[in-house]
């Protein structure tokens, strides 16, 4: 009996060690990035690297002084919010219709964007947007990023709509409610938390997306992610500002993801796994 208890304690201890090890491996690079962003400029590139230092905001000041960081951030916000809104506007009714009719091809069609390499769309978009003079416009950026957000909204919301008992809709139908009315007045309030999760995930992945803005934006509409190059280009002496930029760019998605981490599994796998 004591033998078994001993083994048990051993196993639990071993597991704790592994948990801490995994945690350190996962967290260390991020912690290093954040620490570096607060280091005085002469210490960022110190070798051997220092762990104890007087934290300073000089890198952040430098970043906003030497680059149009805030206007890039505003561009990112416009494109991300715009594409998330568009994804919700198109995705909510589509998810509802797919869930109700069980005709799933519209949902599968939107998934194509999740599978094909972005460059496949970017080539014809570039040719088409250039012809109508839309390269560098917010519209082109928002439309392209909505290709990312739409499947997320649809596939996150599908299980939520599926979870509503059919009898709820049938009762409303008997009362003479139109389908559109049922969606907005009855179904939507029931899946409000699903809508919130889908909106946050759509926001995160639109914010993080790199490729489209790289080609479709110009100097005035460049998003933070597409501008990341400008920060790197300044050379290794600017590590402090580079890490400050990286920290600020990563902050919005990390904060939002922390809010919905509990519901993330099913949302991130686009319904492939029941979380």
């Amino acid at each position, binding site marked *: 009996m004591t033998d078994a208890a001993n083994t048990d304690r051993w196993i639990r201890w071993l597991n704790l060690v592994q948990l801490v090890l995994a945690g350190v491996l996962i967290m260390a690079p991020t912690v290093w990035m954040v620490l570096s962003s607060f280091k005085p400029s002469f210490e960022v590139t110190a070798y051997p690297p220092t762990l104890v230092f007087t934290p300073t905001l000089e890198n952040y000041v430098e970043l906003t002084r030497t680059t149009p960081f805030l206007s890039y951030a505003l561009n990112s916000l416009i494109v991300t919010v715009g594409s998330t809104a568009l994804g919700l506007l198109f995705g909510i009714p589509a998810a509802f219709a797919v869930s109700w009719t069980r005709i799933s091809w*519209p949902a599968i*069609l939107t998934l194509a964007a999740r599978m094909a390499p972005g460059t496949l769309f970017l080539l*014809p978009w570039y040719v088409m947007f250039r012809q109508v003079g839309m390269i560098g416009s917010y519209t082109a950026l928002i439309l392209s990023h909505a290709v990312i957000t739409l499947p997320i909204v649809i596939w996150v919301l599908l299980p939520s709509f599926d979870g509503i008992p059919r009898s709820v809709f049938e009762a409303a139908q008997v009362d003479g409610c139109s389908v559109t009315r049922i969606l907005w007045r009855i179904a939507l309030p029931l899946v409000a938390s699903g809508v919130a999760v889908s909106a946050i995930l759509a926001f995160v992945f639109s914010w993080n997306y*790199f490729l489209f803005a790289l080609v479709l934006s110009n100097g005035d509409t460049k998003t933070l*992610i597409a501008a*990341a190059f400008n920060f790197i280009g300044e050379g290794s002496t600017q590590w402090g500002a580079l890490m400050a930029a990286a920290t600020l760019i990563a902050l919005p998605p990390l904060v939002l*993801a*922390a809010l919905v981490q509990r519901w993330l599994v099913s949302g991130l796998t686009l319904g492939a796994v029941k979380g």
Partner: protein
Amino acid sequence: MSDAAATLAQDRQKLEMSALSAPAVIFTVAMIAFPVVYTVWLGFQNFSSTGKQSFAGLANYSRLISDYEFWHGLWVTIALYVLSLVLQLVFGVWLALVLFHAKRLPGIVRSLFISPFMMPPVVAGMMWLVILDPSLGAANYMLQSFGLPPSDWLASPSLVIPTVALIDSWQWTPYVALIVLGGLQSLPPSVYEAAQIDGASPFKTFQRITLPLLLPTIVTAAILRSVDLLRFFDIIYITTQGGPGNASNTLNIYGFRVGFEFFNIGYASALMLTLTAIVFGAVLAFNRLRGAVAW
């Protein structure tokens, strides 16, 4: 009479349903289906350096076959794909088991564990660029303090693929773990209890019971990662841009550069269609596999 009224109501409902999915369908056709068809057409076009366009037939595809950079890109793509996928699946299953046995994980800890793949890959590239710097990076300092020789990491033609695989695995292993953890939590506990009564060792239990039952979940994770890994772009474009030389020039990076740096849209279209066929082929193959390991 009431029959006719019922059909009328049904028709009306069908119409309303179509109207609800219409915006999403029209948007997808306009932004994806039509452009893809357009890409197919572009693949048969030749764009001269002056921007003049002419019909090229299959010239872009025959050029593909004799293009050394294409075959090299294919090799880089597959090497990076296999290496990253194996790393992420092995460590993902390990991490999932560790998380599974640590019952009652506080939300804040879970948030920290998912933080790598919620941040932009571009940011991951930026931070690792600094950490892996050959002369001043923290990684080489760690190596040296353990008495190991420093490495050139991303600057070394022979090490750049493993290094990029390592960065991507740092970012996406927790994602695989989260999926596998979901699979673990849905396994019936009675299975373990039976094994315990039979006196099976923890390792045997894992090998004979847990792993086979988890296989469908692991294949699902493999599919989701394959789709991203075969079109690898962000981290490479930020850290090496396909270099040093062309050592990390994946097909996606190569196609992008042909299209948007050399503006050979026709040839780039042929390259991208080939890559897309590879991605869909991999997904179909894994789907078969998932059917084979289902229970």
